[in-house]
């Protein structure tokens, strides 16, 4: 999954701390500086209390698999042909936010709903580091 021709995340004013965190192998999540509600993806204004005060904290990296798919047909083939089958999952972090990632390090068909996972970081080309998830003991 580290081929340079894959979509490269482009950090913006909201997401820069997240991607910087990944480069340091720290899963950084934003929360409201006022009501302290964590949010993902990051953005300037809290949808709950409308405060623009923001903070970042290091998440535990522990979560569960909310849902997952096994990609068998690569789109585009030139980019993902070598990777299939691969797993994309919605991960519920224990801090209460959900993110998209890959589950790696096991047979895709061994995944079950709500399975416990933990973050691991995969380095790619161009300085990109992606947070991925692998199985953990509950």
């Amino acid at each position, binding site marked *: *999954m580290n081929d340079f*021709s894959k*979509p490269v995340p482009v950090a913006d004013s909201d997401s820069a701390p997240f991607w910087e965190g990944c480069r340091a192998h720290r899963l950084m999540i934003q929360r409201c500086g006022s009501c302290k509600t964590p949010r*993902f993806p990051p953005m300037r204004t809290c949808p709950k209390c409308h405060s623009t005060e923001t903070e970042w904290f290091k998440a535990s990296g522990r979560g569960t698999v909310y*849902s997952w798919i096994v990609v068998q047909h690569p789109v585009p083939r030139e980019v993902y042909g070598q990777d299939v089958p691969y797993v994309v999952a*919605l991960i519920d972090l224990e801090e209460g936010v959900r993110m998209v990632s890959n589950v790696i390090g096991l047979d895709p068909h061994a995944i079950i709903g709500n399975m416990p996972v933990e973050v691991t970081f995969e380095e790619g080309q161009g300085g990109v580091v992606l947070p991925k998830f692998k199985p953990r003991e509950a």
Partner: protein
Amino acid sequence: MFTLRDKYAIAGIGETAYTKNSGTTVLNLAVEACQKAADDAGVPVEEIDGIVSYNFGDSVPAIGVATALGIPNAGYAVDFAGGGNAANLITLTAAAAIEAGLAKSVLCFRAMNGRSGFRLGGGREFQARGITQYTAPFGWITYPQAMAMWCRRHMIEYGTTAEQLGSVAVTFRENASLNERAMQRERITMDDYMASRFIVEPFRMLDICLESDGACAVLVTKAEHARDLKHKPVYIMGGAYGGGPNQGEDLFDAIRWPDHSQNYAAYIADDLWRSAGVGPSDVDVAEIYDCFTYSVIMQLEGFGFCKPGEGGPFVASGAIKRDGSLPLNTHGGLLSEAYIHGLNHVLEAVRQLRGDAGPRQIADAEIALTTAGAMTCGSAMVLRA
């Protein structure tokens, strides 16, 4: 809530052939469908003063179609950014625009070279910006991949099965076998479904809709105007659009959506039925947005035809067949007729309510539901003869 019950009607419908390669421009497709809708109603194009459409950057602007048709003064020419979610929205806003005095007769169209031209889900940008920076780098790129994620959650929560998905595919193909316009008319069996290859688990090839070139259009007028025209009016009883909080930053994004086992339908159902003054048990025929087999299950639950979690057993029971309690997608749907982003569902509902559906006709169809959308945002209408 939509408050114009029975005050507006669909007076005309038109469409092009549905093909894999139209050999012509999207503009020409749009003009052909719109002209046919005007002719079907018996309204001269010169009397049309509104035109509205929706697209994903894959179509032509409404003013371009107005220009090509020779509409003298399109006072309400609007393009919505949207996909299947907007198919009923444009018709509802056409009625609203007429009510507000912005126009008198409004063409609503969707036109695309969806197979030979711009293919949805053919890959996103190489540089993942905005919301896609959190999705595309993980290889989560296409709509089948997006919707498969929703389907899996339903399976986790309710034990929904492949055979239940398959019963949707098999039923709609059977309906398409009666539809001369359908792109896929060859019947399939459950064995064919189970043998079709996985594209993105849990979806097989036969869970995924077609890609089509083509266009559809409907003409919306005041009901009293429609009564003087060529066909029996099809009245807009009610409608709704939306999907509650956390719909995401684009149609693909559902990261913040709380429960992926239910979609927009659960959020707009109350408004829809209240606006129409009828309920699910009053519907004679329904054309449900079926970009994927699974989206049908989620909408049946959301709109109250069955309880959450019971959509799988419901579709597998035979209830959705032509002779069942709720005939669905009598034209074959997006899965088997064509993928004109849900506007072809509205055309089929109009045909059923006019009694013009030929071998596909559901006897005594008086009330029809059309829905559009599969994920966090969508629209629906209740129509009557």
